[in-house]
């Protein structure tokens, strides 16, 4: 699992994930993922276009981050979600906590407006 970050401005980061958000994949990035976002209350737009699998561990990582960020007036949005991944995310109602968007522009707009 690969994770790249890009600073988009005050308290907003773009995270690009590539690979599988399965148990080993999450294990390899979770600490860094949470450390990048939570301590400073950074909102994030997450590029999921190169993530071809997610299991409960990946869901847990995203939801835990979103919950911690909510307390810090920050939020997450995802974009570029692949079809099979999207079906799982829909099944667990992730959209109730994390914006799932069609494009990066929409994802940025969603997090900016939710913390405005």
């Amino acid at each position: 699992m690969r994770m790249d970050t890009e600073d988009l401005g005050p308290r907003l980061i773009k995270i690009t994930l590539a690979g599988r958000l399965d148990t080993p994949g999450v294990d390899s990035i979770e600490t860094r993922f949470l450390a990048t976002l939570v301590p400073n209350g950074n909102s994030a737009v997450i590029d999921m276009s190169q993530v071809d699998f997610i299991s409960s561990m990946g869901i847990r990582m995203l939801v835990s981050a979103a919950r911690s960020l909510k307390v810090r007036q920050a939020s997450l949005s995802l974009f570029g979600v692949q079809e099979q991944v999207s079906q799982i995310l829909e099944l667990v109602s992730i959209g109730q906590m994390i914006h799932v968007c069609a494009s990066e522009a929409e994802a940025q707009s969603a997090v900016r407006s939710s913390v405005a």
Partner: protein
Amino acid sequence: MAGREAVVRLPATMSGLAAGGETLRAFLDSVELDPARRYQLELAFDEIAGNIVRHGQPVSSVELVITIDDAEAVMTFDDDGVAFDPRTRSGTRLPAPGEPPQAGGLGLVLVRRYASRIEYGRTGQHHNRLTLAIPLK
């Protein structure tokens, strides 16, 4: 399709889990499967084997036997970890419409959603043996 079978053995470590997943995916590449059904098989592996590695300690190894025919895939997990019957685990469910997502406990919920049957027993060698059947039609 005549039955296809593979055996995946992995040490009960995170790197073993990663390698075991790759072995499983290589096998699934050789079988013609609907993408959604294939995803369910990969999901079952990650949820069950992942649970064993994370929660079954002390545990040294996991063996998966997977058999696929036209109707279903049968996955049998055998491990030497602490006794655990996942059928007895309750309390977590998928959120109802409008409810927020849960962070944890979704693994077995997802497996139960896709498996048509789940069987568990302890073997004579004091191993856990869990068998799932996942419909392919």
